[in-house]
């Protein structure tokens, strides 16, 4: 095969992915960027290079608050999900007999099979004043009055964690089962105890799985609208909720696009931070 033929064949294999990325990422991104620089004159969209939307956003306290709320919720969800998912993945990978692992994994991802919206409303009922959680706590005599759990940040975080623990469990489990048992044996032979083996051998080797899941969690969580809308009770708004408000009545796509660019900027900064401090290049 000549070099030219190989090059053409290489481009042929690459073309579908390039076209896909171009059609469903690059072009929409450019359109969104251009839209954020347009303005609305009544109902008429005026294309241009105006920074009015960004100036408008810079002057609004609600946006700064929405960014803070989004980041606080997302970081909490990511941290809690990792802390819960890692032991679960560990147990499935090392404590559950191999013949049962598939079944246990299936059970772990069972909640994925229900509708995201239905699951969120189910949590609303579980966390209600007369819901299962409050009834149980009161039945055990731990509280005298029902706690306010629904329509709070706690409810939003709970709904998110329920979803993302499943996702993280899968990514971490996939990483754990690929590790050769020889690493652990070698560490033990060299005198390391179980904790030292985990701390200095297993954890560093499974960091790529953790980081992949954590970054997916971060991206999906910060861009989610449904969960905070249903479970958070709108007592504080995230950036996606503010975007939806711009679209609902006024259909202010330029302002919504500017907000979306801001959201993308946050995700990009998060990625760069992870790449710098958490060695994302190892993934």
């Amino acid at each position, binding site marked *: 095969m000549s070099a030219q033929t190989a090059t053409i064949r290489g481009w042929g294999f690459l073309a579908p992915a390039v076209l896909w990325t171009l059609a469903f990422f690059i072009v929409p991104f450019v359109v969104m960027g251009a839209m954020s620089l347009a303005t609305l004159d*009544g*109902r008429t969209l005026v294309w241009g290079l105006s920074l009015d939307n960004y100036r408008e956003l810079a002057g*609004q*306290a*609600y946006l700064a*608050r*929405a960014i803070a*709320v989004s980041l606080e919720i997302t970081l909490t969800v990511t941290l809690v999900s990792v802390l819960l998912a890692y032991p679960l993945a560990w147990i499935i990978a090392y404590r559950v007999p191999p013949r049962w692992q598939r079944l246990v994994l299936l059970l772990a991802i069972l909640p994925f099979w229900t509708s995201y919206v239905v699951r969120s*409303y189910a949590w*609303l*009922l579980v966390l*209600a*004043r*007369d*819901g299962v959680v409050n009834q149980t706590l009161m039945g055990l005599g731990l509280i005298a009055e029902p706690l*306010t759990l*629904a*329509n709070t940040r706690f409810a939003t975080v709970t709904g998110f964690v329920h979803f993302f623990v499943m996702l993280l469990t899968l990514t971490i489990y996939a990483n754990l089962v690929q590790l050769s048992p020889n690493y652990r044996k070698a560490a033990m032979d060299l005198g390391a105890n179980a904790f030292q083996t985990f701390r200095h051998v297993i954890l560093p080797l499974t960091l790529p799985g953790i980081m992949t899941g954590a970054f997916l969690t971060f991206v999906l969580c910060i861009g989610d609208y449904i969960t905070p*809308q*249903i479970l958070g*009770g*709108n*007592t*504080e*708004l995230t950036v996606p909720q*503010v975007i939806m*408000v711009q*679209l*609902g*009545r*006024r*259909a*202010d*796509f330029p302002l919504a696009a500017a907000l979306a660019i801001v959201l993308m900027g946050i995700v990009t900064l998060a990625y760069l931070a992870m790449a710098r401090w958490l060695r994302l290049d190892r993934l």
Partner: protein
Amino acid sequence: MTYRTFTRLAATTALAGLGGAAAAQEELNALVWCDHTDPALIEPFEEAHGVTVNLREYEGTGAALALLEQSRPGDWDVLVIDGIDVFRAIDAGILAALPEEELPTADFFPEVVMAENNSRDGVTYAVTEKFGYNTISYNANAVDPADMEDLTRVWSEAYDGRISIYDYYLPVMGLAAMAQGIDTAAIDAEALGPIGETLAEMRSRAASVAGVVAAQTALATGEVDIVVGGGEWLTAVLAEERPELTWTIPSQGAVRWTQSIGVLEGSENPDLALEFVKYIVSPEGQARLATSSCFWGMPANAAAGDVLTDEQKAVLRWDDQEDYLARTQLYPAPDTDLDIEMQDLWLNTLQQ
């Protein structure tokens, strides 16, 4: 039968079949609110005309206008729209003229004919189909009903943490304005100061700011006892099972919502679309729309009273409508600049 005859017959039969299928597949595409998706409302029309009505729900006039702008002319035939936003659809040139003489507006409750909203320069573009109130819904077993007759007591300290606010800034700011003695039609930039103070007070007492389903769930589960901005549309569907969930119009009054229906310009089935509009505003259509499984509301056509049962009219509080209509004001209908200011105020209040 020769082979040729057979093939001709087969072809003729197939074409007839296709023709029949084509006739059976005549479709009407309507952009609607959820109350129009009740099969009890739509199926009688489909059966009577042998057509299929494709319904697409939307939330927010902006979303509907954006969808229509992105569609080809003729993709959509019918639009249901917030009564105060008909002017936006007329401005956008998306509504076709309706033959006023074929609409039974003479039978309507006079306050909701709203010719000034539904027509321009003597041409009618839409017709009111349903109305109701954004007012105070509450659990009569959990609050003092006498308190619910005064807006300032509704969001007082006594009900701290027991309130949900309906998640739509226009009616809620209308209620806040009325609590301040400001007419909804008189809301301007200057009035936003006192309205903002009331909103902030309301927000400080609220456990949640909720959409239709969330507000209904919160009230039904006891998460809250009061929904500011609620009304018959929130509690009427629960009237049979939970009669304690009720609503009132306080002494300061409340906000009146209306929804209108019209035929879209460029519709490929304008006659069928007009028939659909006429069906919806007919007494039978109005009775079904008023008691839709999604939400109940008063029919614009008073003649629907002959079709509704006494029980249904009792839930809708048919006999009180004269008083309610006199004591309520239409939604605020801000121009673009004021709308932006109102929305910013709303967002800033929610984020406090």
